[in-house]
């Protein structure tokens, strides 16, 4: 199972800060599709977001292990 942590407008649109998804491993791109299918309301923002596996940014081709802790990082607005 992969844990997906959501923040800010993405958590608000999804109505949750955390998604638990059945997952036996796959690419970041695969995981993006799974998340978008599960919560269409965040698909647009997800496409503009970075993905971190653990606390490291990951490319779409990177592998996400079956027990990963993942964070979706939408465009930032601190300062």
């Amino acid at each position, binding site marked *: 199972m992969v844990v997906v942590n959501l923040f800010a*407008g993405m958590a608000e649109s999804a109505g949750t800060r955390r998604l638990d998804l059945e997952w036996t491993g796959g690419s970041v791109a695969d995981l993006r599709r799974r998340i978008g299918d599960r919560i269409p309301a965040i698909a647009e*923002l997800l496409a503009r977001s970075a993905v971190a596996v653990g*606390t490291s*940014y990951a490319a779409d081709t990177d592998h996400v292990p079956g027990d990963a802790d993942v964070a979706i990082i939408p465009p*930032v*607005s*601190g*300062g």
Partner: protein
Amino acid sequence: MDARSKGEVSLVDGAIDHAALLASVAAPDAGATVLFLGTTRRHTGDVVTERLEYEAHQPMAVRELARLRNEAVSRFSLAGCGIVHRLGVVGVGETSVAVATAAAHRREAFAAAEWVMEEIKRSVPIWKCDESAVGDRRWVHPEAVFDGGAAP
């Protein structure tokens, strides 16, 4: 972190102690110190802001702030650099972010503080929610494509 340079990074929940931040970067060979404070402003065009709320991916934000701090120290030959970002609700006139830089000469101190602020806005996983006086809430996720510049 360069052992010879002063200052740290942190995320805080309450008011930012900018006097302590300034003191933390003081060094006998710093001829110039710059403190930047980003404060919640009332008006942005026609929009009236009542307060902002900030949220972060805290471990990633701290790590990214530390990376920016260290890069600023080496890029601008700083004697000190410190960054504090506040999370949670920040009212109008209150400070959400403070950056202090100390250098031998003023050009480096100014340039470094400006650079750190640009980078914070570009790459640190912190988000703000704009709450208007009429009760609207809007998380800010700028349209520009996230360019992955923050990736290691």
